């Protein structure tokens, strides 16, 4: 559901920068995100909000000892679900150790571009999906219904490679969630939805799962599509009652090799860093970044 700010009300009140941002209560750590491969990716999408690519070492790979320590903390805190992202998680040499040890204590979602998912990788994932007590979801990013739409965004030849990765998953019993960033605005409307369903059906996905994500106007996306405007700041009173249950940052934290952040979107914002340890970050946050308006206005959650 999309909520819209009242433009007349916006025009009448003081500029957002002069007003205090809203504080979002923290309801407990339900969701733990791990930036397992930092900002290192095998592709460099034009809309990437953290400017990932083969040469971006801003956030490096996470080490096994760090991940294990986090899993121990998460167990004590009673975390409900886990997410791995990057960069491209399957670039990490220890990725299957991460996956197996995480799945032993909770459900896991992995955000991937699918390009590295060959028959062998998919077979291992399929076996893990079938065997453990907790569910495993793969989110595969795809930004168009043809190479012509997708490849200018995600890179030459990626359309076919992404779909091939998804097909390998399906072959091994995993129905992935296709994640579409609506750089092409029409991707997210009813007609766009139908077009995605049609091309996926042609490839054997008879009950396709799709998630649409609004572009966040930071990182490389700021250069591609423009940044946030001066009114794109939330102020006290903007949040609706109980919004801490709807916004993911009310119950999640993101950990990278460099520290703990409130959410997956803001890891390249130095001021957003909350500390070294999860224990430092289990507190309310101020929604003072322009990107916070995207989640609030769009009613968006990074959850699968």
């Amino acid at each position, binding site marked *: 559901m999309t909520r819209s700010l009242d433009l007349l009300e916006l025009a009448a009140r003081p500029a957002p920068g002069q007003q205090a941002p809203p504080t979002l209560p923290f309801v407990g750590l339900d969701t733990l995100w791990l930036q397992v491969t930092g900002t290192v990716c095998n592709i460099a999408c034009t809309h990437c909000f953290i400017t990932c690519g083969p040469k971006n070492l801003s956030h490096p790979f996470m080490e096994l000892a760090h991940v294990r320590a986090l899993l121990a903390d998460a167990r004590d805190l009673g975390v409900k*679900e886990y997410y791995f992202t990057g960069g491209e998680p399957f670039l990490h040499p220890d990725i299957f150790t991460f996956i197996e040890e995480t799945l032993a204590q909770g459900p896991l979602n992995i955000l991937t571009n699918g390009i590295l998912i060959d028959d062998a990788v998919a077979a291992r994932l399929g076996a893990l999906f079938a065997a453990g007590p907790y569910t495993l979801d793969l989110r595969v990013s795809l930004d168009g219904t043809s190479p012509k739409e997708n490849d200018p965004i995600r890179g030459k030849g990626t359309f076919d490679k992404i779909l091939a990765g998804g097909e390998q998953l399906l072959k091994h019993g995993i129905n992935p969630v296709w994640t579409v960033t609506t750089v092409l605005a029409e991707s997210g409307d009813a007609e766009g939805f139908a077009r995605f369903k049609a091309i996926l059906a042609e490839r054997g996905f008879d009950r396709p799962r799709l998630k649409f994500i609004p572009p966040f106007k930071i990182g490389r996306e700021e250069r591609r599509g423009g940044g946030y405007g001066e009114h794109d700041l939330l102020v006290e009173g903007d949040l609706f009652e109980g919004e801490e249950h709807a916004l993911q940052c009310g119950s999640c934290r993101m950990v990278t090799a460099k520290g703990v952040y409130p959410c997956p979107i803001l890891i390249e914002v130095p001021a957003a860093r909350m500390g070294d340890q999860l224990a430092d970050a289990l507190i309310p946050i101020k929604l003072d970044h322009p990107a916070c308006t995207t989640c609030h206005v769009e009613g968006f959650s990074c959850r699968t």
Partner: protein
Amino acid sequence: MSDLERIAVFGGVYNNHLSLQAVLADARQQGAQRIYCLGDVGGFGPHPDRSVPILIEQDVLTMQGNYDDSIGNRLDDCQCGYTDPRDNHFAQISYNYTLAHTSDPHKDWLRDLPAGFRLEFAGQRLLFAHGSPRRVNEFLWESTTPEPFIRRLLRDFDADLIAVTHTGIHWQRRLADAPGRGLVNVGAIGRPANDGRTDVWYALLTASDPIQVEFRPVAYDHPRLAAEMREEGLPEEFVETILTGWWTTCLEILPARERARSRD
């Protein structure tokens, strides 16, 4: 100390007055001294005004689910927590039907139901909630409710064993180092458990150490329910679920693991 030896716990009546009667008969036959309903009396099935009198007359200790809160307070939707447009479409059909066919006294009864129950049973602290103790419409599925999270709920809500419903599929998970403690989702008696069987399921708890939880399948006159649903003009998709045991709606909310066990 409580001298209770056996209690029955169910949820999700969903207007299925026929399965409700069958479950109550089975529970009494099994020696249940008390019977608890964890909410969601309405939705999905026919004749909303038939289930409430049964619950009252048979002394079923009933708590409020999200559906009961919505119907009782005459809200616009069921607060079920679905995210998929098709799921919401069918949920709204059920809801509009149930709201229109529930009498005012029954709405008031649903509005005034308690939000949960606590009791001591076999020396253990039992807590009954609808979705979860922290949120009425939280979905607690088997594949997405890990043991560490259950420990957290038990700790936060001072309980040894928590029983919930809301998802419609029964399961339980006990703590590895303390099998008397854990979480039980009693499933729903209003529609099948998406397992290809037309039976519905409830939980029978027997005082022992640890407490024994038996999920019991109950057969009922489901062809008659299907006929009543058709007479009432309810969607054929719902009728199909009653006749086949497979869900045809609310599928998108299922985690991948539970969805993989579905028919479609």
